[in-house]
């Protein structure tokens, strides 16, 4: 290449180093392989779960939620009262059991205890209709969680379907579908719920009685319907956005080059990759649904009495706020705990699983 010559190494200096010559033999391939170790294999999922459990807030929220769910399931088995049951002593209504403070007994109940009967304590006291408040709160939590869960499920299914079709089809289909979404987005949701519940009440009226849905009441049905009609748009937009983004990845192009059909591409390549974002969004949707339900119940448009929900309990407690503050306290704490835990869990999930945030 050139006639460049380097100066020679000062030999004397190196020769004077005391070195063990045996070390200068060639290393075998086996030794070289051991030199490098490959990190142990983890999937994306395990990696994310690992991260999730390192997040203290997320772990606390998970514990809280597990406790709440456990309570909801177990409590009705332990506590002998039903949510609509008015306290009775020996078969007769106990009128003195009205508005008891937590962990106190009514006059009649005390007499009965003195006489040897065993009466389960009223952990949260009773309400103005002599019903055990604890079990009502537990049931209320059950209703709120179920509503939150099912409403989110509706949102997920409709939003996912709609968004994936719009996202994958692209072009005019996408354009039209998204404009419909824009229109729906601008409709006022609370107003719609009110209107719908009034309309449904009149339309369905007595036809629901006797069916399973009767217990829920027409208000709840209208709530689910409104969720199905209005609230999926956020999810649809999210899914569409994800799909548009994933479509640009070269592995989708590679699948097309292989001859894969669109259904296979959506199923195997696109959906699995947006799953984490969708799950996170759903996790954050649940508290929003619960909150909406609570709010509607609070203004009187929620579940039909006697079925409690945390919101309706809070509403009922509002009137007696000065005299019996604890009645508002318990359902309010319930709502706060559930909503906060889901939010923190959702945040934790996002930090752990969102590929964009990886370091």
């Amino acid at each position: 290449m050139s006639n460049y010559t380097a100066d020679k190494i000062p030999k004397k200096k190196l020769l004077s180093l005391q070195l063990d010559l045996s070390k200068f033999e060639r290393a075998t391939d086996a030794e070289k392989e051991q030199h490098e170790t490959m990190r142990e294999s983890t999937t994306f999922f395990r990696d994310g779960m690992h991260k999730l459990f390192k997040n203290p807030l997320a772990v606390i929220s998970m514990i809280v939620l597990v406790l709440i769910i456990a309570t909801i399931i177990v409590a009705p088995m332990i506590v002998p009262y039903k949510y609509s049951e008015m306290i009775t002593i020996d078969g007769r209504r106990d009128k003195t059991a009205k508005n008891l403070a937590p962990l106190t007994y009514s006059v009649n109940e005390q007499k009965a205890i003195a006489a040897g009967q065993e009466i389960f304590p009223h952990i949260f006291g009773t309400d103005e209709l002599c019903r055990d408040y604890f079990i009502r709160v537990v049931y209320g939590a059950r209703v709120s969680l179920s509503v939150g869960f099912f409403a989110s499920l509706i949102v997920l299914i409709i939003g996912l379907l709609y968004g994936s079709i719009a996202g994958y089809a692209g072009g005019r289909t996408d354009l039209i579908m998204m404009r419909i979404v824009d229109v729906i987005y601008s409709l006022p949701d609370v107003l719609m719920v009110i209107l719908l519940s009034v309309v449904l009440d009149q339309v369905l009226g007595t036809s629901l009685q006797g069916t399973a849905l009767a217990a829920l009441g027409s208000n709840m049905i209208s709530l689910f319907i409104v969720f199905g009609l209005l609230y999926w748009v956020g999810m649809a937009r999210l899914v569409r956005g994800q799909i548009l983004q994933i479509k640009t990845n070269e592995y989708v192009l590679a699948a097309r080059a292989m001859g894969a059909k669109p259904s296979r591409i959506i199923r195997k390549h696109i959906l699995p990759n947006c799953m984490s974002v969708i799950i996170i969004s759903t996790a954050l949707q649940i508290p929003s649904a619960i909150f909406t339900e609570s709010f509607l119940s609070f203004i009187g448009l929620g579940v039909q009495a006697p079925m409690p929900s945390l919101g309706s309990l809070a509403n009922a407690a509002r009137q007696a706020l000065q005299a019996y503050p604890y009645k508002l306290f318990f359902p309010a704490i319930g709502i706060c705990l559930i909503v906060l835990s889901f939010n923190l869990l959702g945040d934790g999930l996002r930090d752990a699983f969102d590929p964009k945030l990886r370091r």
Partner: protein
Amino acid sequence: MSETTLLQVKNLHTSFFTDAGEVQAVNGISFNLDRGKVLGIVGESGSGKSVTAYSLMRILTDPGRVTEGEVLFKGEDVLKYSEQKMHSFRGSRISMIFQDPMTSLNPVYTVGNQLREAIKIHTNRNPKQVRERALEMLQLVGVNEPEKRLKQYPYELSGGMRQRVMIAMALACEPDVLIADEPTTALDVTIQAQILELMQDLQKKMGMSIIMITHDLGVIADICDEIIVMYAGRVCERGTADEIFYNPCHEYTKGLIRSIPKFGARHEKLVPIAGSPVDLLNLPAGCAFASRCDCAMKICLTEHPEEIRMNDKHIAACWMNVKKVYDEAKEGEKQ
């Protein structure tokens, strides 16, 4: 330390403390930079070259931290400067240009705005003087129609033009040292040639020192006076351009040179370096390159090679050099 030595880096160690563990990005590198010289730092991804630059400028982001070492600029340890002092140091004594001109210019401010900001921060000129200086800089870097350009936004300029603006911003305060972190990697070959010519021109005109960081051996061969080859956060070799290319003394450097396709040698098969780049989370004992090295010896797996001075222009850290001397001595004894 001689009069002309501007920057002295001594035993720099930088690590990133991530969730997965400590990523040892830089593991004890030392070098000097003389006034008016161009130093090239060449290495592949994971070699620690960019991290070194970021450590010098102290712009490492969390979770990165300098864990050991000194950076002496004109005798003072930059790593010990207060934040206050660093503000006046960065951009005016040492400045940096980055790889991707699209993301290193703020898209919501005009070019003129950003250029003037660079000037305003470090000098005491009034607005009129600032604008004049900005125009001066744009002309210096070869941007045509400078008045028009001042009002334009980054997206309106081409890649080469944006990189010129970056250079103008970096040189506005006449720094002593310019660090260029892969400045031409994102540019087309013909534009790259323009920018490299520009940098060489400016260096002659303004007399500053340049640290050129790149993975492209061709770019290094062209403009650098002295070259450092890095692997796994350590210096493999350090020497003049001629020494490194015509007398490589480290197996990694030799491997790199053998593995690049050359003009006209189409029918020679390339000799790649086996294996994959080292995992910085699990740095092995001894020489980090040993498991990929054809000539690896037992000592390479256990002891890290010391830096051996090959001649007054060349230092290499490879046990093969020691072995060669012993072999030659043995040959000599036999005869």
